[in-house]
C-alpha cells in the first residue's frame, strides 16, 4: 500500500483562486518524495491538505491508508508535520515543547520525559534543552521542529521547505537527518524550492507549477528525459574554428560555437567521452583552454516542462539568515 495516494486533488479558495488544480501522485512507503516548485506553485497548499489542515475542494487523498477528508483524526495519528517556518512557542524551553508534543500525541506520561530527551539528543539539542526557544538559532529551531514531528515515530513525515532561510551548515545537518530517517524506513514528503535539495534527498521528484504536476520521476530519469550531458570546451583563441568543427563532428551532435572558440557537444557516454574528445583535439593540434562536463539539472527539466526557470530556486546554498543565527554553542548531530 502506498504511504500517500492522491487522485485529482484540488483546492479552490474564495474568489476562484485554484491553488491546486487536480494533482495525482503516489508515494511508496519508505520513499523520500521531493515536491519541487517555485513560490506560489501550490506546494504548501498541497501539504496543508495532506496533513488535514486544509479541506480539499476536489479529488481524494489517502495518507497512511486513511482519507484526509473523512478520517482526518486517523491521519493525524500517523503523520509527523514540520510546517514552513517552524511554528514554535518562543517562551517555552525545548524540553517543555517536546514534552507537550509527546503528551498531545498520547505518549504515556511515564514515557514522556525519556522520549523527549531521546529526540532532543538525536537532533543535537541536549545542551540547549533548558533554554527558551526564543534564544535558539534558525537551524536549532528547525531541528527542534523536526524532533517534535518525530516524537511519536510517524509513518509519514511532512517537511514543508525545511531548509528555507537556513545557513549551509544547518541545511546539511538537516539533510543528514532526512537521510537517516529514510534509512530507518520513514516515508518523507518534502517540499522545496531548492533544486539541489531535491536532487540530493529525493528518491523521486514531483515538479509542480501553477497547481499542476508537470513532471514526476527519479531525478536521474527526469534529467535524462530532457537531454544528455554535454561537454563545454574552450579552445585557444588562435584555433581554426572550421577545422575544430570537423574534428568535433565525430562526437555526436555539436552546436556551433556561440561565442568565439566555445563549443558545446552533447555526449551520450558522459565522462567516458572526455578522453577521446581531448585526444582527437590534441592530435589535430588544438590547445584546449578549458573543459567541463555539464549534466542536465532539474532546472533544465523545469524549463523543458514549463518554458521558464524555477523562479526563486537556487542550485547553490540558499542564503544564510544571519538575523536568526544567535551566537550559540550549538551541538553537532549525535
Amino acid at each position: 500500500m502506498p504511504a500517500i495516494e492522491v487522485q485529482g486533488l484540488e483546492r479552490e479558495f474564495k474568489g476562484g483562486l485554484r491553488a491546486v488544480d487536480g494533482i495525482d501522485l503516489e508515494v511508496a512507503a519508505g520513499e523520500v518524495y521531493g515536491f519541487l516548485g517555485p513560490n506560489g506553485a501550490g506546494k504548501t497548499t498541497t501539504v496543508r491538505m495532506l496533513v488535514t489542515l486544509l479541506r480539499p475542494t476536489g479529488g481524494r487523498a489517502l495518507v497512511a491508508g486513511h482519507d484526509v477528508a473523512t478520517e482526518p483524526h486517523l491521519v493525524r495519528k500517523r503523520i509527523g508535520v514540520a510546517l514552513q517556518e517552524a511554528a514554535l512557542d518562543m517562551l517555552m524551553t525545548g524540553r517543555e515543547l517536546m514534552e507537550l508534543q509527546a503528551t498531545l500525541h498520547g505518549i504515556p506520561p511515564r514515557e514522556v520525559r525519556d522520549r523527549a530527551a531521546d529526540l532532543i539528543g538525536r537532533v543535537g539539542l541536549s545542551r540547549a534543552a533548558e533554554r527558551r526557544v526564543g534564544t535558539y538559532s534558525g537551524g536549532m529551531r528547525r531541528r527542534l521542529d523536526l524532533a517534535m514531528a518525530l516524537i511519536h515515530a510517524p509513518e509519514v513525515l511532512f517537511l514543508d521547505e525545511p531548509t528555507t532561510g537556513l545557513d549551509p551548515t544547518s541545511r546539511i545537518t538537516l539533510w543528514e537527518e532526512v537521510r537517516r530517517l529514510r534509512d530507518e524506513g520513514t516515508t518523507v514528503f518534502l517540499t522545496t524550492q531548492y533544486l539541489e535539495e531535491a536532487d540530493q534527498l529525493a528518491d523521486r521528484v514531483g515538479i509542480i507549477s501553477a497547481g499542476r504536476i508537470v513532471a514526476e520521476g527519479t531525478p536521474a530519469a527526469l534529467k535524462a528525459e530532457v537531454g544528455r550531458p554535454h561537454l563545454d570546451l574552450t579552445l585557444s583563441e588562435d584555433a581554426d574554428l572550421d577545422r575544430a568543427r570537423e574534428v568535433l563532428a565525430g562526437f555526436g551532435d555539436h552546436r556551433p560555437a556561440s561565442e568565439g572558440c566555445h563549443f558545446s557537444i552533447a555526449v551520450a557516454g558522459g565522462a567516458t567521452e572526455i578522453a577521446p574528445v581531448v585526444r582527437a583535439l590534441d592530435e589535430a593540434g588544438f590547445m584546449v583552454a578549458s573543459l567541463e562536463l555539464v549534466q542536465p539539472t532539474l532546472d533544465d527539466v523545469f524549463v523543458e516542462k514549463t518554458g521558464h526557470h524555477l523562479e526563486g530556486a537556487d542550485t547553490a546554498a540558499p542564503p544564510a539568515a544571519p538575523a536568526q543565527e544567535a551566537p550559540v554553542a550549538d551541538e553537532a548531530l549525535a
Partner: protein
Amino acid sequence: MALRAALALARRSLRTTLRRPQFLAPLLIFPSLFLAINTGGLHRSTDLPGFPHVHGFLDFQLSAAMCQSLMLGGVGAGIATALEIEGGFFDRLVASPIPRVSIPLGRIMAGSVIAAVQVVYFLALGLIFGAHIAAGVPGVLLVLVIGIATGTGFAALGVMLALRARSASTVQGIFPLVFVVLFISSAFFPRKLLSHPADWVAAYNPLSYVADGIRDPIISSITASTVLEGLAAATGIAAAGIALSVVALRGRLREA
C-alpha cells in the same frame, strides 16, 4: 485524551503567561490603580442617601476592581490565542491527534486559574489596606467561586473573539469596551443610585449581577438572592463563552 490534552495546554498557557509579564501586569496594576484612585477620591460617596451600609468605600470598590481585572484577563486570553494563530502554533495544535475542542479549553482552563489568582490578589490587597470581608471564610469562598466562573467566561469570550478575528491587534481593540461594559454596570456604583437610563442599562448588564454577587459577601452577611443571581450570571457568562468559543473553533476549522 481530551482532558489530558486540555490540561497540558492549560499548563503551557499558564507557563507562557507567567513568562510574559507585560500581559500579566496590566491585569493587576490597572485595576489596582483604579481602586486606589476611586477609593481615595470618592470615599465620601458612602454618605449618599441610599448607599448601602459598608465598612468603607474600599470594601465596596473591591468588587469593581475584580470585575475589571477579570475582563482584562479575558482580553489577555484572546490576545494570546490570536498570537498563536498568527505565529502558526495554533496550526501545530490543530495538526495534532487531539480532540480539537481541547485547544480552546486549555486556554480557558488557564483563564480559570488566573482568575483565582486575581480574586485572591484583590482580596489580599483589600485586607492589607483595611477592608473587611463581612461574611468571613464562606464569603471568601463565594467570591472565589463567582470570580473564577466569571474569569472563565471572559477568557472563553476572548478566545472566541481571537478565533473569529485571527489578529491580536483586533482583539486588543476591544480593550476600551471593557471600560464601557464596566461603567454601564453597577460595578462602581450602586444600581439604586444610578440615574435613568444608566440604571435601566445596568439592570440588563450581567456584569451588574456578577459585581453585586461578589460584593455582597464582602460588605454584608450573605444575601442568598444577590449571591445566587451573581452566581447565575457568572455561570451564564462562562457557559455562553465556552459554547461560543467552541462554535468559533468549528467555524474556523470548517472554513479551512
